[in-house]
């Protein structure tokens, strides 16, 4: 099913310097799509356009057949979870525990449910002994894990992950690979933006290469 569709996508920050040029893509919901490319190729920008964090200069992004420009970010996030390249952009609470439960509490969920969900994620991401710590004072790898945990809290049906292996050692990378594989088994598809070949090889069904804002290859394994 074409979950995300990019039509004639064009994006620039400054006039005359396009970051994304003429991209047409259909992203399937039930597989893992990888977007690869060198630094400065436009991968992150493409991910943000897919998520609706950036609005296209020209062209259109459709999510579930609806034009994403007509949707609010919060509406999009009920379907798609987005991971920033810099995990600190996800944090605005004083403790790890608070950070995980924030959105649920704010939306008035039942306290027991919140506690269970938070505990589940703390264990899954090995952050139980850090639950009282301030998110900004964690090590890079711990921040990464917490950020991924926060975007899973609302049970999204799809994920866009921008360089999720930044700062992870090989052990934790394996843990992350397993977590993501489990999620795909539950029917959650994802787009992973990365330059980590090993990580991509382990996970992806489809590999899209981007260079200077244009797609240069699109392979299925």
């Amino acid at each position, binding site marked *: 099913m074409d979950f995300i569709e990019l039509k004639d996508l064009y994006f620039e920050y400054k006039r005359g310097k396009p970051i994304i040029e003429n991209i047409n893509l259909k992203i399937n919901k039930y597989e893992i799509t990888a977007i690869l490319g060198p630094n400065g190729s436009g991968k992150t920008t493409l991910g943000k356009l897919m998520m609706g*964090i950036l609005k296209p200069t020209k062209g259109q992004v459709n999510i579930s057949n609806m034009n994403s420009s007509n949707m*609010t*970010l*919060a*509406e999009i*996030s*009920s379907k798609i*979870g*987005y991971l*920033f390249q810099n995990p*600190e*952009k*996800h*944090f*605005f*609470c*004083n403790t790890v525990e608070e950070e995980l439960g*924030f*959105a649920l509490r*704010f*939306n008035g969920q039942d306290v027991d449910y919140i506690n269970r969900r938070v505990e589940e994620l703390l264990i899954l991401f090995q952050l139980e002994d850090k639950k009282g710590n*301030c998110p*900004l004072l964690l090590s890079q790898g711990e921040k990464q894990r917490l950020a991924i945990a*926060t*975007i899973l*809290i*609302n049970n999204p049906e799809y994920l866009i992950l921008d360089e999720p292996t930044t700062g992870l050692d090989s052990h934790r990378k394996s843990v992350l690979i397993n977590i993501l594989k489990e999620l795909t088994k539950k029917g959650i598809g994802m787009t992973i933006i990365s330059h980590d070949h090993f990580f991509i090889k382990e996970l992806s069904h489809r590999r899209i290469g981007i260079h200077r804002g244009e797609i240069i290859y699109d392979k299925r394994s």
Partner: protein
Amino acid sequence: MTKEVKLDPRTKLVIVLCISTLGIAVRDIISLLLILTLALTISIIFKVNLKKSFNKIKRLLYLIIVIAIIQSIFSSEGDIILSVGRVMLLTINGLEKSFQFILRIIIVIISATIITSSSSREIVQGLVQWGLPYDIAFMVALGIRFLPLLTEEIKDSLIAIQLRGIEIRKISIRKRISLYSHIFTPILAGTILKAEKLSTAIEMRGFRAYDSRTSYLVLKMSKWDYLIIFISIAFTSFYGIICIFR
């Protein structure tokens, strides 16, 4: 064929100071409007992004109008236009004063943006070559860098909140205030932490390693710079004297 003349940032500083001084010292509205036109023209010549400045003014417009109204209420001279019972709300003088105030603020804002057509490095170098100690100039430049850091943090956090499924625009005012107050401390803490780490990196790059420093960037004033500075100061003094003796 026009030759692109690049003006020294110090010249721009002089221009900004002159315009701001005139804007504050001058009284009558016609002159203020003329000065505003001058400021706008100069901004356009320097290719300042006026759209951004207008957006900033738009956001402050609410505050500006409130202050203007307060000014008007507290100046009780002149013919009364509007009054409620014994309280004079609007007088001719009051209207004039608030209009002056609005024009002055806009002049100062527009002229300040003239400075933004030079990079912060150039401005710092300009001040240093004028004799300001580098430490101070640099700290000022960093302080200027700090404010956008804070606004970046706030923007990022608001996006992050929406990404968690919280519809900021659709929740009640009370809940919104509670949201903002809840995240205010961590956002401020985040900015301060960022600033601390940045200052660590700056120290490790040798900041203040010696009593002075060399500079790769060297500014040279051209004859245009001197000419414009002379014209600006002459114009300002001339105009200022006329206004004082009116």
